[in-house]
């Protein structure tokens, strides 16, 4: 039975049901279900090996689930920004954009290249070989490639990992603007504070299981609930979401 992406009054950009991914005996994702809507900024957080990259890869269509299904609104592919910049370092910024615009079969590749150069502020670097750019600029080209076809959703795997604070700030401004125009943005991160600050919704993964889905405020409430194991230490943790999050995972055996 296929999933209905029309839930109530809203139409989801993407809906997943009972997504499972196994690598041999290891379970990377275990029966995960959720729906994401236009304009949402969704953070997927969890420790290493929780299944964040696997989940994003399946949503991007780069990986097939072992079981379960994903339904997407419309025919368009989602934008995909892998953790490591997926670029040809011997090609220039413009050549990378032009190549993928052609592979995406866009009606006007040159116009798309110009638009993305303008949107990411890389016009003056258009002719430069990507291999000579800084990590931050490479990440901008990486994101530009994900947005070439004006996708309904942009999937970013730990997008701020290699950026300095200023580049990070510019990235989040850019992402907020995208969401403001109705693009669904999904990103994975280790940085709980970043999720709290920029996400409108948080999915918490642990060992392939979906442990939590809700707003950052709901997550904060969930991790601050009374617990016999926490004792007097809890008072020191209130207001520190990251520490509370670690305890939250610990209490659930992750």
């Amino acid at each position, binding site marked *: 039975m296929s999933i209905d992406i029309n839930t109530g009054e809203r139409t989801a950009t993407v809906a997943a049901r009972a997504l499972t991914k196994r690598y041999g005996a290891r379970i990377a994702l275990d029966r995960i279900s959720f729906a994401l809507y236009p304009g949402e900024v969704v953070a997927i957080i969890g420790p290493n090996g929780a299944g964040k990259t696997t989940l994003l890869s399946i949503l991007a*269509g780069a990986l097939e689930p072992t079981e379960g299904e994903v339904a997407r609104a419309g025919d368009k592919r989602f934008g995909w920004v892998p953790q490591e910049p*997926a*670029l*040809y*370092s011997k*090609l220039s910024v413009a050549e990378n954009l032009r*190549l993928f615009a052609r*592979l995406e079969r866009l009606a006007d590749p040159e116009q798309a290249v110009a638009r993305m150069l303008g949107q990411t502020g890389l016009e003056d670097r258009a002719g430069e070989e990507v291999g000579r750019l800084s990590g931050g600029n490479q990440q901008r080209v990486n994101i530009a490639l994900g947005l070439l076809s004006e996708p309904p959703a942009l999937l970013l795997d730990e997008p701020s990992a290699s950026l300095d604070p200023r580049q990070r700030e510019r990235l989040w401004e850019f992402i907020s603007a995208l969401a403001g125009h109705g693009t669904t943005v999904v990103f994975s991160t280790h940085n709980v504070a970043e999720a709290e600050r920029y996400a409108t919704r948080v999915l918490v993964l642990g060992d392939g299981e979906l442990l939590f889905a809700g707003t950052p405020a709901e997550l904060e409430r969930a991790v601050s609930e009374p617990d016999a194991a926490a004792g007097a230490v809890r008072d020191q943790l209130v207001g520190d979401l990251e520490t509370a999050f670690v305890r939250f995972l610990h209490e659930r055996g992750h």
Partner: protein
Amino acid sequence: MRWLFVKDLQILKRSPLLVGLLIVYPIVIALMIGFALSSPPGKPKVALLNEVPTGHGQLSFGNQKINVAKYASQLYQSIDAINVNSRAEAISKVQSGQAAAALIIPADIVSQINSLVTQGAGNPTVDLILNTKDPLERQFADQAISSRVAQVEQAVSKQVLRVAVTDLQETLNGGTLKFLGQTVPLLGLKNSRAIVQGTIASLPKNSPLLPALRQVVNFATLAIDGLGFATPVLSSIGSPLTVNTINLAGKTTPTDSYAASIAVIVSLMFVGVLLAAALLALERSEHTYSRLVRGLISPSGLLSEKIALSASAAAAVTLVMSALVSLFVHLEWARFPLWVVTLALGGLAFAALGVAIGGVAREVSVAALLAFLISLPVAFVALVPGDAVSGTLRSVLDAVAFVFPFKAALQAVSNAFSGAAPGIGWPLVHLAVLTLVFGALARLAMRRFA
């Protein structure tokens, strides 16, 4: 796929060092192999059938004698002889590959040589049966036997010359001749002329005998001058022995064009394997694989692009190389379409091997190193002469050579260049099958990419 092709060409264009190495390195290696091929390895295995009865291996010229058995023992120093008892057994040894060649010395060889040098009639012939499967083995066996046959010929010629020159000197200068136990004096031409000249001097000037005697002197002078030239002329006595070469499987690739084939295939292998391995590994090391295969191109399409590009580059480089080689080595230009077909199919098979290697490497440098480590032994295994190793090891080497494209490509290109045996059909089918097999292995390896 067109745009990926363009992209890869752009990347290659911006890597002049890599491209230069890819072209220059294999050509240098190929030339070195070509030079190495001109030096034969150890003794070839030769099935030897000596039908000359024991004790009948001696040639006699005048009072000179040649023991042919002495030269037969020298032949044993040049070859690894397998003594056989019949012509059929000799042929069977060659056909089964146990011997690179067979040499058959007929029973009447000694009397035929004697007849030739004493009466000018006779056709002393030895049969040399060669295994045509491997032109190198054929060349080495041929060379080893031919040099020994030449020694026998030289020895016979020398003795004939010695006898003839002695007789000539005696005819010119006089001497003694032993006949029926008696020593008979020989006057000689010079002495005869001196006697006649003395007689002329003692005769009156109007003697009617003078014209006739002067004719005798003139003749003696001409004969002395003529026979004086005979000694160097006799030194040029040719080859009393005829070597009748029999090829069991038709026309053989000439050694020089076989060496050219090896040089071309080594280049085809290096360019095809290295380029394909590096181009596929590049997609992984640049993290672009995941981006490409999520709907932009299928993994099989990506593999096909890498194989096609690498095979085209390898075929183009080696086609130019073949044209240049043909300036120095005879290659049949009439078969040019077959050159193109074989180099294209060979290029595809090597490129498929390359993507299979690139499929297991995460980095371009690792892929290139792996490609080298695998390619070189593959080439050497295919070039090991069958006689150089024992039966079991040979079977193992044959099996290894069979599952890689080098040997099939070499056979196909040798045939394309010279029309020599074996035929071109099976090697081409073999290459096509290997392309599919290595392509499938590469596709399997790419499952680890995501």
